[in-house]
Structure formats: C-alpha cells, structure tokens
C-alpha cells in the first residue's frame, strides 16, 4: 500500500514515497507525486486518504508561503512541524484528517532535520522514519544499515535497498517510487525508481 519513508544524512535529508494512486483494487495512476515541495528548503511526504492528503498538504503549503509573504522570512522546519501538528490536533476532535506526514527541511545554522507527524498529531523529531505497510520493512532495514552522517551515495543505496525490500516482500507492492532531497542548495526531485512506466497519453 502507501509507503513514505525518509532519513537524515550529512547536510541533507531524503524523503521517498511510492507513486501509486489506488482506489480499492484499481490503480488509477502510477506516477502520483506524494512528496510536496513546501518551499525552497522543505519537503512534505504524506500518505493516507487521497482527498485529505492533497487538501491538507496544499493547505500547509499555502500557509507556509503566506508566512513568508507577510513576514519576509521563511518559517523554520521546526516551526512548520509545530504548525502542521497544531492544525492536525485542532481538527482531530472535529473532522480529523487521515494523513501521515514526514516533514524534512534544511535550516541555515541548524542543518537538516526530519519530523514524524502521524494522523493523530503525534510529533517527534527523528533521524529515520517510515509510514505504511512498507514501514515494517524499511524501519528494520534502516535500523540495521543507517548510521549518522551518511553521505548521499550511502543514503541513496539504503533507500534503494528499502525499495527493493518493499517490492520483494509486500504483497501489493507499489511499483514506482519518487525520491526527493533537501540540502543547503534547496529542495528538489532526486530520482524516480520505476518498474512500470506509465504510457504517454497522446494529445488529441
């Protein structure tokens, strides 16, 4: 099912997510981007109810941009995480969002950081984390192979190992994944790992 996972390395943070949009037994599309670029130096990987996911992550993105427009400086990763947790917690006892979030960011002076925010607004700063059925495999792989201050090559190797593990061992394994990275140069897409290519739709 939906897998989002990520880790913090030396001067960067990576968030990877599967890219299947699924409705019961039907796969609508295999190239749905679930890792949103919040602003220049933040990534928000989200998994959960599709409508809530898009709605909530766009709401957070617009509010992060609004803060920057109003105040002239961007929010820090910690502040964004606390804002996101606050929104989820306020909605929790009224009309809860079913969205699990991994927020990764790079702040000057602090470096890279990653926050785990689950759908009931439990927030914790972590070095490695995962959501979904894939988490059972990814967390164990990362417990074994992760060490602090990994280089980008080592981190991508670990991410790839996690993806291979999910593809091998999960019964309804998502075929494609997107990997995004955030470091001092900004947040950007790093790579796709596709085993099923979506056919190009020819224009009418």
């Amino acid at each position: 099912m939906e897998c989002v996972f990520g880790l913090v390395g030396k001067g960067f943070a990576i968030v990877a997510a599967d890219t299947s949009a699924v409705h019961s037994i039907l796969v609508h599309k295999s190239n749905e981007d679930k890792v949103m670029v919040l602003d220049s130096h933040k990534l928000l990987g989200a998994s959960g109810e599709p409508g809530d996911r898009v709605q909530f992550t766009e709401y957070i993105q617009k509010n992060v941009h609004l803060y920057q427009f109003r105040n002239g400086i961007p929010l820090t990763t910690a502040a964004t995480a606390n804002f996101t947790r606050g929104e989820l917690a306020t909605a929790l006892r009224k009309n809860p969002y079913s969205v699990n979030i991994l927020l990764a960011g790079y702040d000057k002076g602090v470096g890279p950081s990653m926050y785990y925010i689950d759908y009931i607004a439990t927030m914790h700063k972590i070095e490695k984390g995962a959501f979904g059925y894939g988490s059972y495999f990814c967390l164990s792989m990362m417990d074994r192979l992760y060490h602090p201050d990994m280089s980008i090559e080592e981190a991508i190797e670990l991410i790839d190992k996690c993806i291979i593990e999910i593809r091998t061992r999960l019964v309804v394994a998502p075929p494609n994944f997107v990997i995004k990275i955030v470091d001092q140069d900004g947040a950007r897409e790093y790579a796709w790992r596709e085993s099923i290519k979506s056919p190009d739709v020819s224009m009418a």
Partner: protein
Amino acid sequence: MVGKNCFAIASDRRLGVQLQTVATDFQRVFKIHDRLYIGLSGLATDAQTMYQKLVFRHKLYQLREERDMKPQTFASLVSALLYEKRFGPFFCQPVIAGLGDNDEPFICTMDCLGAKELAKDFVVSGTASESLYGACESMYKPDMEPEELFETISQALLSSVDRDCLSGWGGYVLLVTPTEVQEKMLKGRMD
C-alpha cells in the same frame, strides 16, 4: 517518588504505535518551572497538547501573579482542564511532582478525567502501572536521601518496564532537590 526533601520522576523513552516502535528518545517528563515537573503517559498527541495548554496557563499565571504556581494549585489546574473534556477526554494520565513550601515534596497522579490521587510515597501511571505499583511498594522506604532515591526509582522503573512489551527502550530519571536538578538516562533492555 518522594524522598527526604527531594523527589524523583522517571519515565521510559519509547514512542510506539501499538506493536511498532517509532522512536526511542521520546520525552514524556516536562518542566513547568524549576520546582515542578509533570510526566504525561498515554496517547502521545494528547500528552503534547496537554503540555502546551498547561505551559500556556502557567505562563499566564506567572504574568498575573508574578510568581510560580504551587504544586497543589497546578494539580488542581490539571484536574480541571481534564474534567472540562469529561465527555470527550484527553487520553493521558499525568503524574505531577513538585517541591512546595518549605521544600516539602508533593506528588500526585490522575486518571484521564482528572480524578486526583495524592500520595505520600509514590505515584505511577502508564501501561506498566500495575508492575510499577508492585515494584515501588516493595522497594520504597520513607525519607531516602537523593542518591538512594535515584537508585530505588531506577530499579523500580527498569524492572517494571521489562515486564511490559509496550514500555521500555531506556529510562529517564529526573532528581530534584532544593538546590539542584539532576537528569540521568538509564540503560535498560532495548526491546
């Protein structure tokens, strides 16, 4: 746990979602002011929300009264905040520990609806509470000095959480005397 003019408050460090362990460095004991601490077990999101509400209320109190809250007053505040949500409660069980007037230690615990339980010796909460009651009852002695109190509370915590699959992954002990505060991490079974 209460000692001679001192108290200690301890917690485990696991953050989990049922069977899955998410983090092993989760902080459950929070400072309200130099002589008052609260430990919040139960649902992590409600513990975080409760802590934020309590810090807010205490800061307002400090601005209005120009002093820190007494532990007994704070316990009543926590109880009132929890009972406000009587029919849709916060799923957290607080343990409050503080030094009151004349450096008299004060401890109490509550259920998730705010029913206060004062004690003179020790209070416990969490998934391992039954084990903790047993361990504390057998290990506790009145009027322990800080070093002995630290040993006792550490042993009680570690032996209880080892019997509970949802607790553990290390321990955190805070020992407060009138003159100093000591924080220590405990190394326990990491499973």
